[in-house]
């Protein structure tokens, strides 16, 4: 099915598919499917593995720059070999399992976590022809695959035979469950407007430009912008990133459910976190930022996977930037934020998107009305809810600081 469209595309665009076909073309017919899948898995593992490695480096470097220090710069040129040095260190460290711990679950937890956080990549369309599994229910699959991370966190906390780990795991679970709701609800408007759960079709629905230069990305509609922001906030919390990194707050909770992990198991947790971050960012790109689409028609000659990578990197750098900027929330603030702010806003946004798709036929001056109403539905609840929730809590003043 892909091959039909291939001929019209540029060489660069076709390059990954051509490469795969060159490899699989030598094999007998019945093996091709298996080999193709294997190749895709390997490509994802290799690509995102490398991305993970350099993301850690980038994070350390950027945090360093923001905090006025150089960051790692001894291993290799500009410290470029640092990730590998870290990997070797993690592999060679002693693997400590506490006495009385549930050995099986202690081992299973990081494995399960990494496994399920990799699952999500299967349905992300990295490029025009680059999607590992084309599912009718891709979005549902993505989030179904992500749910098992909670199980892994629980396993880690429980198996450690450490009451602090267990408590931290419970807190982490509470956070994950709370933020899963706005995460899912902020996706629903996209599904509603695009009319499909398939990621490729959602990306296709965002193709084209109005007025010649405004892409039809969902983020450029009132509900889409709100949905994107809500999605990203919930994604920050889902991937345990600052300012929602309570579950593993190193300085307060001695790394929470990760207390009893060391060596490569710890590295696996770390890896899973970055994978989750990448997967959610990729989903955000797919749902709201037009996927692999180019922002301008004139720029379409650049291959689609390059656009996807660029958008993904921008989002990831945003994650790092936020981590360097915002302080950590308190647990009750976190819960309040999720249930009293994000969930109502996502529900309203859903209604907003419904209204948007109902008024799709409006033209002329009615179009202005449509935009005004949608914008008001985004802005007014945001302001009102924000004012209400933050009433009485003025900015703190520090007497001795």
């Amino acid at each position, binding site marked *: 099915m892909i091959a039909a469209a291939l001929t019209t595309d540029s060489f660069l665009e076709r390059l990954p598919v051509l490469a795969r076909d060159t490899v699989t073309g030598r094999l007998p017919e019945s093996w091709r499917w298996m080999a193709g899948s294997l190749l895709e898995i390997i490509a994802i593992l290799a690509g995102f593995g490398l991305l993970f490695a350099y993301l850690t480096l980038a994070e350390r470097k950027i945090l360093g720059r923001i905090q006025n220090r150089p960051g790692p710069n001894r291993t290799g040129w500009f410290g470029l070999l640092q990730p590998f040095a870290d990997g070797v260190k993690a592999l060679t460290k002693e693997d400590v399992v506490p006495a009385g711990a549930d050995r099986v679950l202690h081992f299973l937890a990081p494995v399960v976590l990494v496994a399920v956080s990799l699952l999500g990549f299967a349905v992300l369309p990295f490029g025009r022809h680059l999607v590992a599994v084309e*599912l*009718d229910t891709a979005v*549902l699959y993505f989030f*179904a695959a992500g*749910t098992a991370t909670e*199980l892994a966190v629980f396993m880690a906390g429980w198996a450690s035979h450490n009451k602090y780990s267990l408590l931290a795991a419970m807190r982490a679970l509470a956070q994950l469950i709370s933020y899963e709701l706005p995460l899912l609800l902020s996706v629903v408007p996209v599904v509603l407007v695009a*009319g499909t759960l398939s990621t490729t079709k959602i990306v296709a629905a965002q193709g084209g430009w109005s007025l010649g230069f405004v892409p039809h990305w969902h983020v450029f509609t009132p509900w889409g912008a709100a949905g994107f922001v809500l999605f990203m906030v919930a994604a920050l919390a889902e991937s345990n990133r600052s300012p929602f990194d309570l579950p593993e707050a190193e300085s307060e909770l001695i790394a929470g459910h990760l207390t009893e992990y060391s060596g490569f198991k710890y590295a696996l947790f770390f890896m899973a976190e970055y994978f989750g971050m990448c997967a959610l960012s990729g989903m955000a790109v797919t749902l709201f930022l037009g996927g692999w689409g180019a922002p301008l028609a004139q720029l379409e000659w650049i291959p689609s996977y390059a656009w996807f990578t660029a958008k993904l990197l921008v989002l990831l750098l945003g994650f790092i930037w936020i981590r360097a900027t915002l302080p950590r929330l308190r647990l009750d603030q976190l819960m309040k934020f999720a249930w009293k702010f994000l969930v109502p806003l996502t529900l309203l946004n859903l209604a907003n998107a419904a209204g948007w798709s109902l008024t799709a036929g409006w033209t002329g001056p009615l179009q202005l009305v449509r935009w005004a109403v949608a914008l008001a539905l985004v802005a007014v609840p945001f302001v009102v809810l924000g004012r209400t929730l933050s009433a009485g809590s003025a900015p703190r003043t520090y007497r001795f600081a």
Partner: protein
Amino acid sequence: MTFTFLILAVIILGSALAAALRPNLIHCALLLVVSWLGVAGFYLWAGAEFVAFAQVLVYVGALSMVVLFAVLLTRQSRAELRVDAPETRRAVWAVIAGVAVSGVIGAAVFATKWDPAPVTAPEVTVRGLGLELMGAHAAALLLLGVLLTAALLGAVVLAAPDRPEKEEKS
């Protein structure tokens, strides 16, 4: 009968049986999660993608969490998680009942003359499913929403402490 189906059956039944036998409550719960995952796999195998992912979302994502929370909320020490082994008399009766039920159902399955089955899988797209839900089954969907709301409120009322204000005073 395919190889995949057999593997799935082994996973489902094996983990469920193991859950029936393990003394550790957490292990039982996690094994049952595996069993549910197996059922989701069965749905996938049968071609019901949407149901499979729904099964994963609801059972693995939500139900297991609720179960684990319930386990941790109703426990005083780690030792208590080692539930007593079943009393022999009750266990025997349970096995007898289980075998009898499966025997009867199995007998019924074999005794029934099935029509020559159409092998082609029915085509159900998500879109079609949604239209069906919102069309023919809209009333049921609404009722389901009411039911879920009622269940949520009921669960909160049941699980909430009886008199929180009294506890504050003491």
